[in-house]
């Protein structure tokens, strides 16, 4: 008996996307009618013959995943990382059988449970109790299994007295807790988890990660875990698969793959702009640009640690939501998150107010805080406890030259940095 529980051989997934043909600027009404009539005819024909129908005039084939092969052994926790659109979700969808691969083959030994979303199938009119049964069945538990674990689930979710209240009356935090509690009590041999832990408050996230850790390390189950949270991946996974543009770029021991991933940032600059139709976000908010610059105005990507460094974010808001949090993660080249900052960390009165239209905000990283080294910045925009709006990895890169020390000994260990994640100057005095 070999110990390989998941074996993927050259899997690929092709999507066909339709494009509207470029129109001449002065299209006449008659031409539009003719064009539409022709489209209608094509669609009717496709409908009658049962061919897949794609909107648009010209078709383009896109490989969301191509030639991906890997093996995962029993009891391994494997992280899957990559930028948005790298094919991570497609891979998980194939492994959990939601969609079929276009080519290749996956062999899986054991029962798979996949958690691509917290609270799939939750019905807002039903009570917490009813939703536990519903969601459990959707995730593949039997009634008997749910019954057995019911008390445990309720205890984990901390919703006790609201058990018989419809979940539409729950706070978003309670909702997420309940949903994760059900999922956490699945007992498959293989657990496939998408970025679902990212919602919920910090203490609950910690609890979730702890549970995942328990599943992986103590119960010896196989876990596949997609995340943008490098610290979580680092903690949880022994192996990491790095995808880029649908291909497997790197696969191996966690730390080395993560630094490979962050090093891809070699192409990154200290500023990035998106065109409005390609800008990350949703219909209510789009992130248009981000810049890292120094207090002295330089934007060349190499900054002195004795000066403030500004992270500038420009976004367009079409809808204003009170739970909006705009922020970023600052990550070292080794994948360690130095800090996360949100504008809501400040008191209401002093923080910038979101206005409809274009907002340009700056966050100042204090002088004399960062150690020397290369940093990447990952935008994090969310509706607190509700959903992510922008969750991109490493869109900016800059280098910090350590020179804020006043003592002549400051540089003695290393000309660029000293040990430690940060290097602030702390107060010393005689007690």
């Amino acid at each position, binding site marked *: 008996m070999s*110990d390989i529980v998941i074996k993927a051989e050259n899997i690929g997934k092709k*999507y066909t996307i339709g494009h509207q043909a470029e129109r001449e600027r002065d299209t006449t009404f008659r031409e539009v009618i003719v064009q539409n009539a022709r489209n209608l005819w094509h*669609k009717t024909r496709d*409908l009658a013959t*049962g061919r*897949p*129908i794609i909107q648009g005039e010209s078709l383009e084939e896109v490989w969301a995943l191509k030639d991906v092969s890997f093996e995962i*052994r*029993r*009891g*391994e926790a494997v992280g899957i990382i990559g930028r948005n659109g790298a094919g991570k979700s497609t891979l998980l*969808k*194939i*492994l*959990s*059988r*939601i*969609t*079929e*691969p*276009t*080519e*290749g*083959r*996956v*062999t*899986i*030994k*054991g*029962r*798979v449970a*996949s958690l*691509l*979303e917290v609270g*799939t*199938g939750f*019905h807002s*009119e*039903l009570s917490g109790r*009813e939703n536990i*049964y*519903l969601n459990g*069945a*959707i*995730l593949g538990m*039997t*009634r008997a299994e749910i019954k057995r674990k019911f008390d445990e689930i309720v205890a984990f979710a901390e919703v006790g007295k609201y058990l018989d209240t*419809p979940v539409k009356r729950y706070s978003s935090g309670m909702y997420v807790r309940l949903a994760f509690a059900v999922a956490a009590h699945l*007992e498959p*041999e293989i657990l496939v988890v998408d970025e679902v832990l990212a919602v919920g408050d910090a203490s609950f996230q910690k609890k979730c990660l702890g549970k995942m850790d328990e599943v992986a*390390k103590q*119960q*010896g*189950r196989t876990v596949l875990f997609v995340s943008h949270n490098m610290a979580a991946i680092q903690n949880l996974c*022994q*192996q990491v698969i790095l995808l880029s543009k649908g291909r497997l770029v790197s*696969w*191996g*021991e966690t730390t080395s793959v993560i630094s490979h991933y962050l090093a891809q940032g070699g192409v990154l600059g200290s500023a990035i702009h998106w065109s409005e139709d390609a800008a990350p976000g949703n219909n209510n908010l789009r992130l248009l640009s981000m810049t890292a610059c120094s207090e002295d105005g330089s934007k060349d990507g190499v900054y002195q640690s004795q000066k403030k460094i500004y992270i500038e974010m420009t976004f367009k808001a079409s809808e204003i939501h009170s739970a909006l949090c705009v922020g970023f993660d600052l990550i070292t080249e080794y994948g360690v998150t130095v800090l996360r900052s949100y504008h809501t960390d400040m008191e209401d009165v002093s923080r910038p107010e979101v206005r409809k239209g274009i907002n340009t905000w700056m966050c100042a990283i204090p002088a004399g805080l960062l150690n020397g080294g290369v940093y990447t910045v990952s935008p994090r925009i969310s509706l607190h406890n509700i959903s992510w709006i922008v969750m991109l990895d490493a869109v900016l890169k800059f280098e910090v030259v350590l020179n804020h020390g006043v003592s002549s000994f400051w540089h003695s260990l290393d000309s660029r940095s000293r040990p430690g994640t940060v290097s602030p100057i702390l107060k010393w005095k005689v007690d």
Partner: protein
Amino acid sequence: MIHNSSNLKKAPQGLAESLLIIEPGRTEKNYWADLWRFRELFLILAWRDISVRYKQTIIGVLWALLRPFLTMVVFTVIFGRIARLPSEGNAPYALLVFAGMLPWTLFASALGEASNSLINNANLISKVYFPRLIVPVATMVTAFIDFLISLLVMVGMMAYYRFAPGWSILLLPLFGLMALLASLGPGLWITALNVKYRDFRYVIPFVVQFGLYVSPVGFSSSVIPERWRFLYSLNPLVGVIDGFRWSILGGNSPIYWPGFLLSLAIIAFFLWLGISRFRKTEKSFADII
């Protein structure tokens, strides 16, 4: 690649060594077996739809009694009193109408529920695997429960008119099944099309409204001239409704056999069409919904 052997533990008991192979076209092979494995999900989805149905309504499940009853009253007045169409044998006109309403409502609501079912469950479809056939079939259970409730009205009316059914009433479940199958075929086809083209969401209410008058709900199919009767049975509901009337009203309402068999054939054809179209497009639901 290093593998840490200390992480090796025995797999949990049970389906430990079940082998799953995913490749293009593979789901085809163990589809029907999967359908059986997911029977609990089927039950729980059906239960969800039923328990949600009358949430936040004042009279709740009374709606299931009230709607067919009121329609029956209106039809009896219009077709029986105003248009003075003949009943069958000595059966009261209200009974005749209600015996037609029962299968019609079952068919119409099952069709309506089924054809929107995939879109209404889009989040499930795109996040979890299960044989998709479960979704439309489970929603039809709601229509069936409503049907059972309105059977009570039927029983009440028969007591009111002191009308005793014959042995043929025992075949009523068969005709109920026929009504369900009649809606399943088109329902599956339309719900599959609905995933791509939301147009069909507008087609169904129209078809249902139209069908109510085209099918012999408010009148007996014996008012149709003899030479058109076979052609009229191309509408599969004609067979179903005739069957219901025969089963409830007995000898008062004899079945017109050639037409009944034609209706059966049409139902079988649509069932085949619906299932095969559904199965053909099912794989791509998650990609395009």
